[in-house]
């Protein structure tokens, strides 16, 4: 079965960072240069713009504090780690004081939209895929975003999330399986 693919040309993206990787950037520099990256990751994790904005606020505060001890190196990796952990912290917080049901039931089946193949053939595939991504339990969603959207290795993800590599692999596999099931409906 062939899947319609929405190929997006990424070659026109501006260079991510004009900052000297050997120096510690200022918070303003990070926000200006990497704000879009942080927001995009936050959106993929949070699933909507409102929560993404809240998450980015949290992340920028954490970045401000973290720059005091930041060791120059992989700035984007550092930012993605902060963003992902901030997201998961929020999820855990919501679990303790739920304001709305969370899709965390491991047996829960992600409902696919009727006519999903037709939808995927259209330009709204990214939105549809994002919607399915947002349906995943956060513990599956985060490693999948890091692996399949951002291209991190299993080892890097394990370091980001402070979990064993085996756990990373299993969560990614399960998350992909759920997406597969939803897309196949």
């Amino acid at each position: 079965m062939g899947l319609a693919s929405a190929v997006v040309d990424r070659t026109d993206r501006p260079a991510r960072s004009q900052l000297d990787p050997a120096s510690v950037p200022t918070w303003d520099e990070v926000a200006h240069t990497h704000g879009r990256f942080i927001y995009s990751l936050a959106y993929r994790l949070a699933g909507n713009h409102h929560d993404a904005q809240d998450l980015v606020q949290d992340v920028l505060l954490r970045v401000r504090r973290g720059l005091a001890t930041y060791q120059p190196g992989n700035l984007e990796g550092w930012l993605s780690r902060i963003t992902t952990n901030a997201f998961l912290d929020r999820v855990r917080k919501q679990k303790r004081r739920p304001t709305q049901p969370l899709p965390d039931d491991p047996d829960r089946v992600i409902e696919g939209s009727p006519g999903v193949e037709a939808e995927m053939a259209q330009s709204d595939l990214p939105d549809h895929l994002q919607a399915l991504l947002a349906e995943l339990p956060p513990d599956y969603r985060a490693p999948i975003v890091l692996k399949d959207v951002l291209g991190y290795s299993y080892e890097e993800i394990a370091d980001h999330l402070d979990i064993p590599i085996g756990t990373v692999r299993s969560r990614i596999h399960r998350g992909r399986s759920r997406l597969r099931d939803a897309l196949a409906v």
Partner: protein
Amino acid sequence: MNQTDHTPDPTPADDAHLSLDDERWEREITALLSELPEVDPPDGFIERAIDHRPLHAGRTLGVAVCVAAIVVAATVGLGVLDQPDVVPGVDDLAARHQASEASLFGFGGDTERPTFEILDDQDDADLVLPPELEPKGVSDEAGLEQGLWADDDEAVSVFVESGVVDFAALPAQGRRTIAGLPAWVDDSRRIVILQADGRAITIVGLDEGDVAVIAADIDRESTWFDAVTDRLDRLTSELGWPSVS
């Protein structure tokens, strides 16, 4: 972060059950996800974040919202007063804290309990506090402001009074200097009094060492209460605040 996960590392045998069709599906899912474009923030969002302007209706970046109700009302226009004029009522503050804890955790007791304005919208306050320690309420009675934070096991109160602490009026054995700030400590009741920014800060529920960590990191140009709320998360992450089961 401290996560416990008992999922064993997979072995090649674990993947043996995957059919070629499964592998193809995984590759296709991966390909789709890898092609998701970057998402642009709303126009001006990052610039407003940098400028600390409201990012969307009803919200202000981080700490300002968390502490504004307490700090702004009390500190606008205040300078550093030279003459000591405040002697924090340690017994009264300890009792207030205990009453707050009782209210929070459902203990019994007849102690008069302060009236709290419970923070209905936790999101703004929670921007700087860790998930294990949450703001529970703020109280402002007759010039004494109290902020209450707690997890499932313990609570911390921070009382703020305008003025200069008269440390000479407090028992001598408790006088200390914490992170360069004049302080007074009651170890047995976990009470720490600090003088900062023209205000008497009384913290109930933290050990002297914990307070020292917070105080050592204070940005002296920011309000002290902002610094407290900003550093409570450091306390949790670095000093092992009891985790929530």
